[in-house]
């Protein structure tokens, strides 16, 4: 049907750029000197420089992954590995350079902060340009800062955990991130402390051919609770940018951590991210992962369930439009008895886009009573679009329960007819089916993010706007 084609035309509303605002911008390309220079600028301790250089070796040795999305258009020599946008970090928005502040205003960050956030970190290219946390949270011992500051101010904590969940050897992009990381968040939740309002980080790429490599480390100590939310956007350029983050999370005994992402990169961004958590005894780790933008995303948030009774959950949504491939999923490693994992993956492909669910459930020996439930639902909006579901399982113990379910639906003529027979236009009817399809995801978002998510999806479904 003609109108269904029209309404999925891909538009991107955050594609503006601020021109060249950086105060320091490296030449393109990655060398040992680039790594050393980043470390020098940050006045890092020697152990961190060693860590970086070791990771660089691993990066150079490891081949490109050939099992996932097509990365052939990614040229590491054409990426800028460090851009410092501002001379200092603001504690108030007035301290942030005007143009950058205007951008974040346009993205709605200061407003969201005033309304419902416990703390905000705003990263622009390589550095965090704004950072603030509610005083009362600080008084409870909660640490929320950018990772560079954390290396200086909390060296023992950082050194104890940095690279322990995702070692540089893990994969080529984790190694790359470790070599050139800059920015990201460090969060520490002390024992028994509950942070009931979300902490938010916002990542904005501005420069062309930018490589953004933030590094996030979260430690939720025993019995604590926290919710960390991140959003991402970038200008639309004709050449490729790279976002390659590493997020490591430790969830200690009885703690619960939720990490929510709404990724809306421009369609020239390679988004190759490694996210992993370790959940100890009776701990709960929840990944809520929304992938709407980017050219290619490869991201499989995972949980290592190492303590008895630990729980892992991944709830994800991927939307792939023209020229996009969302290769996403999750990995759950059961290493202790009575651990449970749940994966609910929702993907939508339209206008020639491609979604792949790629997941792994691993049951080690001796994990009696472990349970896993995986459900993958795909909605395909037109004939040009497609999707794959590639679930892997590794089971070394028979005393476990595993469920897997996959559905593929198309928006059917009957469904549209039914909705249109009540007066909805074809566009509204299609949108209603799509919104209903992702409802299990949006319902898990904090109210304000759900509103934003719905708005984004509606926007994705619009024809020409802006």
């Amino acid at each position, binding site marked *: 049907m003609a109108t269904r084609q029209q309404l999925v035309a891909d538009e991107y509303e955050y594609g503006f750029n601020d021109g060249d605002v950086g105060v320091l911008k490296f030449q393109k390309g990655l060398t040992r000197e680039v790594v050393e220079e980043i470390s020098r600028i940050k006045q890092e301790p020697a152990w961190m420089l060693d860590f970086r250089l070791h990771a660089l070796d691993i990066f150079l040795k490891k081949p490109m992954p050939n099992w996932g999305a097509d990365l052939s258009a990614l040229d590491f020599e054409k990426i800028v590995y460090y851009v410092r946008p501002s001379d200092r970090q603001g504690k108030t928005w007035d301290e942030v350079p005007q143009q950058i502040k205007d951008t974040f205003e346009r993205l709605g960050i200061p407003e969201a902060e005033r309304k419902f956030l416990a703390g905000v970190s705003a990263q622009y290219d390589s550095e965090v340009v704004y950072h603030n946390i509610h005083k009362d949270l600080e008084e409870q011992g909660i640490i929320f800062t950018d990772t560079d500051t954390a290396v200086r101010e909390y060296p023992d904590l950082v050194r104890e955990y940095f690279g322990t969940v995702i070692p540089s050897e893990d994969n080529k992009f984790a190694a790359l991130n470790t070599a050139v990381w800059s920015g990201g968040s460090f969060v520490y939740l002390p024992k028994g402390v509950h942070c009931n309002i979300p902490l938010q980080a916002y990542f904005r790429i501005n420069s062309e051919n930018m490589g953004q490599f933030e590094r996030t480390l979260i430690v939720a100590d025993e019995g604590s609770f926290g919710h960390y939310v991140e959003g991402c956007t970038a200008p639309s350029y004709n050449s490729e940018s790279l976002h390659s983050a590493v997020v490591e999370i430790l969830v200690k005994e009885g703690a619960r951590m939720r990490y929510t992402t709404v990724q809306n990169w421009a369609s020239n961004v390679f988004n190759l991210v490694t996210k992993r958590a370790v959940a100890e005894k009776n701990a709960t780790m929840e990944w809520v992962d929304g992938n709407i933008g980017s050219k290619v995303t490869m991201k499989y948030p995972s949980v290592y369930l190492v303590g008895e009774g630990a729980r892992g959950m991944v709830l994800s949504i991927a939307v792939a439009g023209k020229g996009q491939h969302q290769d996403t999923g999750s990995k759950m490693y059961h290493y202790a008895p009575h651990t449970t994992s749940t994966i609910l993956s929702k993907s939508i492909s339209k206008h020639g886009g491609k979604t792949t669910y790629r997941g792994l459930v691993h049951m080690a020996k001796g994990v009696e009573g472990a349970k896993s439930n995986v459900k993958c639902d795909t909605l395909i909006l037109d004939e040009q679009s497609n999707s794959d579901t590639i679930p892997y399982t590794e089971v070394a113990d028979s005393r476990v329960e595993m469920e897997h379910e996959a559905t593929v639906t198309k928006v059917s003529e009957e469904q549209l007819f039914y909705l249109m027979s009540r007066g909805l236009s074809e566009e509204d*009817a299609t949108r209603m089916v799509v919104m209903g399809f992702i409802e299990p995801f949006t319902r898990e978002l904090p109210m304000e993010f759900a509103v934003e998510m719905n708005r984004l999806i509606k926007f994705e479904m619009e024809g020409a706007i802006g």
Partner: protein
Amino acid sequence: MAGPELAISDLQVAVDGKLVLKGLTLTVRGGEVHAVMGPNGTGKSTLAQTIMGHPRYQVTGGSITLDGRDVLAMKTDARARAGLFLAMQYPNEVSGVTTANFLRTALNARRDAKDPVRLKEFRDELDHAMDVLSIDHGFANRYLNEGFSGGEKKRNEILQMLLLKPRIAVLDEIDSGLDIDAVRIVAEGVDASRGPELGLLLITHYQRILNYVTPDRVHIVYDGRVVMSGGPELAETLESRGYEWVREELVPAVEGSPA
């Protein structure tokens, strides 16, 4: 404003290249209830789907007008906004969309974008309509038709009709698959909506719903045409003599008549 008038004239419809309606003529006006009866496979549902504009049904001849406007020139959603309604035999399920949200969207689709229905007003009307149909209020927050029993789906169709207030409503086998109590509740809901501003076309295989909603006219459809029309007593005759009677006594007369 004058009451509504749906005029169907010499309608011919093909499905997948096969002619199903072969010249059907029928007019329904505001305040009237017309029952369309007939054996399975004679074109009753085709008539319903065609009135609403289902893309699978190809009109090859004849016309449908609503208050003189050409219905066939309108898309399905425009027909709905013009005042047509179809209670479907097999309502679709829409996961993740609550019945209340759907109804509000449908109501707003027929209003000025600057003047959406007020929440309080909507809730009151919805509650009232649910009471008429003995529907639990929690129903409004369930996903549209998902996991509904057959009876719940049919009641939900009538609920939508009560809220959307169409000018002409076609009810396609609204009584099928229901036990006798459910038929009574659904029929009472239908009966409650009767009035000069609504014309009803009740498509049914059985006579039983007509015990609760007395039709003004009964039409018997066979092989894509109306072969006999009459008052409510025709439904009773049909009930007592069965569709064999139609085949044996009415059809030869039609087939023998000049085309």
